[in-house]
């Protein structure tokens, strides 16, 4: 270590210090870059395989239940219930809702509260199905049964109650998942401030490389130090590679925006189906209680606020593809860690090759 001390010449010591500083700066720049890149990559993976699917499972369950309710009411209204019960469409949509909840339980990473809420929804779903079965049984005994229609209303109310109803619980779940997605895209390593943690050291590192290059050219009368020049190019290449991190972050933000649009489209479809189902239910109840249940009819009418026309299947499919496309693009465009590591290793190896021969000249 004697050559490392002040007993060597000033130039020799300067070269030693420069090499150590450069190596440490490289560790800092590439360490931070790798850490930020890994954060973006992990986020893109979570968004693509957990958050986006979870939101879609909730929307699918919501839509399926509204369609199941509409199908059941339609079956009672048409009289088909006497032969087929609440109908095949009802059964299918209930199955879709149950499957969506199961898949949500698997995919969600928004915390234990999601599992608890899924349990609440599943518990209420069993009660809902039980009431539809009761309505079916009463209808089969007597197609004019007021109790059949009452049970149908009790079931639909369990679905639609603003406080604690099944759809309200699903809305709560949707809010939790959307908040979790927003949190993933704005906190931790995805916080905008983290970009500074690798850009600033990278700029400082490049400035150091240029300064040392200038110092060497003046002291040793050489135009360029090739290994240092190569190290500078490696650092520039790694910095350029990190630009893909910006692109990935942009795709993730686009995923969130496309997700918001998808929620709106899906909600419009749900509202349209709900409007149809609740209008039919109101007619059924009004026929069974011509007077004396105004509050109930008013309450149902107040809930019939959705659009008459739902966005078509193509619109929904296009929006789903949009979300999936951005999520996939985010995962694909995150930088390649191996390239970053190779660039770092190359730069770290090149710097001693550039400086050690000059240091040895003072031995």
């Amino acid at each position, binding site marked *: 270590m004697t050559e490392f001390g002040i007993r060597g010449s000033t130039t020799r010591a300067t070269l030693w210090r420069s*090499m*150590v500083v450069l*190596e*440490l700066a*490289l*560790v800092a720049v*590439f*360490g931070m870059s*790798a*850490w930020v890149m*890994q954060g973006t990559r992990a986020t893109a993976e979570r968004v693509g395989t957990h958050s986006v699917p979870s939101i879609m499972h909730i929307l699918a369950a919501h839509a399926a239940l509204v369609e199941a309710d509409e199908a059941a009411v339609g079956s009672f209204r048409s009289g088909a219930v006497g032969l087929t019960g609440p109908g095949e469409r009802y059964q299918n949509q209930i199955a879709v809702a149950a499957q969506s909840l199961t898949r949500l339980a698997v995919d969600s990473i928004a915390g234990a*509260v999601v599992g*608890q*809420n899924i*349990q*609440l929804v*599943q*518990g*209420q779903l*069993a*009660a*809902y199905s*039980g*009431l539809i079965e*009761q309505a079916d049984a*009463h209808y089969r005994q007597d197609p004019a*049964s*007021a*109790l059949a*229609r*009452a049970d149908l*209303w*009790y*079931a639909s*109310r*369990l679905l639609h*109650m*603003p*406080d*604690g*109803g099944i759809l309200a*619980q699903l809305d709560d779940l949707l809010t939790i998942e959307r908040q979790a997605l927003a949190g993933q895209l704005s906190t931790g390593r995805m916080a905008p401030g983290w970009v500074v943690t690798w850009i600033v050291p990278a700029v400082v590192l490049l400035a150091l490389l240029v300064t040392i290059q200038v110092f060497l050219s003046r002291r040793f009368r050489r135009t360029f130090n090739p290994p240092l020049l190569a190290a500078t190019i490696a650092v520039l290449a790694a910095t350029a590679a990190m630009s893909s991190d910006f692109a990935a972050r942009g795709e993730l933000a686009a995923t969130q925006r496309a997700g918001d649009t998808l929620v709106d489209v899906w909600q419009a479809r749900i509202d349209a189906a709900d409007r149809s189902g609740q209008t039919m239910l109101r007619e059924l*109840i009004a026929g*069974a*209680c011509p007077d*004396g*249940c105004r*509050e*109930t009819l008013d*309450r149902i009418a107040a809930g019939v606020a959705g659009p008459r026309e739902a966005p078509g299947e193509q619109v929904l499919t296009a929006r789903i593809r949009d979300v999936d496309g951005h999520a996939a693009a985010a995962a694909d465009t995150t930088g390649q860690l191996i390239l970053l*590591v190779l660039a*770092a*290793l190359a730069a*770290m*190896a090149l*710097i*001693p090759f550039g400086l*050690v021969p000059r240091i040895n000249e003072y031995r």
Partner: protein
Amino acid sequence: MVRAVALAAVAALLTGSGGCAAGGDDAGVTVLASWTGREATAFREVLDRFTARTGIRVDYQGTRALNQVLTTEVQKGTPPDIAVLPSPGDLASFVRRGAVRPLDDVIGTGAEQSHSPQWLRLEQIENANGRARYAVAVTTSLKSLIWYDPRRVPDLSGDTTWDGLIRLSDRLSSAGGAAWCMGMGSTPVSGWPGTDWIEDLVLHQAGTAVYQRWSAGQVAWTAPEIRRAWTAWGQVALRPGHVRGLLFTDFGDAGRAMHTDPPGCFLHHQASFVAGDGGDLDFVPFPSNGARAWEVSADLAGLFTDKPQARELMRFLATDEAQSIWPTVSRGSVFSANRGVDPAIYGNAVNRRIAQILTGPAALCFDASDLMPSAMTNAFYRAVLEYLQSPDRLDQILGRLDQVRAAVPATDWLTVPCGTGGN
């Protein structure tokens, strides 16, 4: 040396990635109950006060499908720390499974003294060692009430007989509106407002002895005194023009027509929570053939785990401080069984009368359908709806109820005697 420095730096870079572990939080308490919406908000105020006092976080979950959710969680071995059940019958079913812990070593004597002996009895359930306290009544309701607006029905008094009430119904119904406001809707347990009618008729026409034996499964549904209660209710509920609402009206909407001008209905048989609906309503007790007795109900908190923080919350729920919070914010729709709660928080004289009955020396009988095993209770709810649909099938309906009664194991029935609330 140079190479060593370079290699060390590279190694540091290669091993630079780290992770962070999310620690679990076992210090909080999970609470499951049936309250949602405004009720959940009010209950959260109680829980927030506990958190402010102790620093212990409470996660509350409210669901209308309480029984299904709780059953699932108990079966999975992941019950909430505390569940608030709407009936002793439901609580007893979990006690029998060994899922609920007794509170004898949890609640101090100070809190017990604030409860009357009758309420303490109502919170006890039999186990292998006799009877033990398993619950804290978080809210209580007084039943056996007939609500009315004294300006619109000035001639209704507390000593009205059943026949007098029927005559009043006839008179009120012939004057335009319907005499009675009724709503059976309360998904997913629609029908319970009708069971309250049947219970009051059994209690006040057949007497407390029959009522106690009936609620304990010892009297057949086809027995004359029980059948008489159904037909007496039919005198009111099934008479054309006498009732506004019924199958297609939610119980919470039923009383609204009392406040319209002209009123859509005049009399409302409902529990004490109606006091929180506003207006200048008063109540008379349900007409009785014998000594005055009142039906009561309660939401009972049970301890499902042995977590110290959960035991702390149970102790807090039993205190006068905790019991005062909800009645204060609910403006009269919730009452406490604690005698240490200041009556002034109930706001007006009508509400204070209710609180006085709940905590005073009056004879209190737990709501029979709340005491019955859940299979019987659910059948009772459905039977009420069936009766309103097909009153001519009453004998068949009662026969089916008796089949359910016979199928329930004798050990599943609770015996909770009526008694006085005072010392």
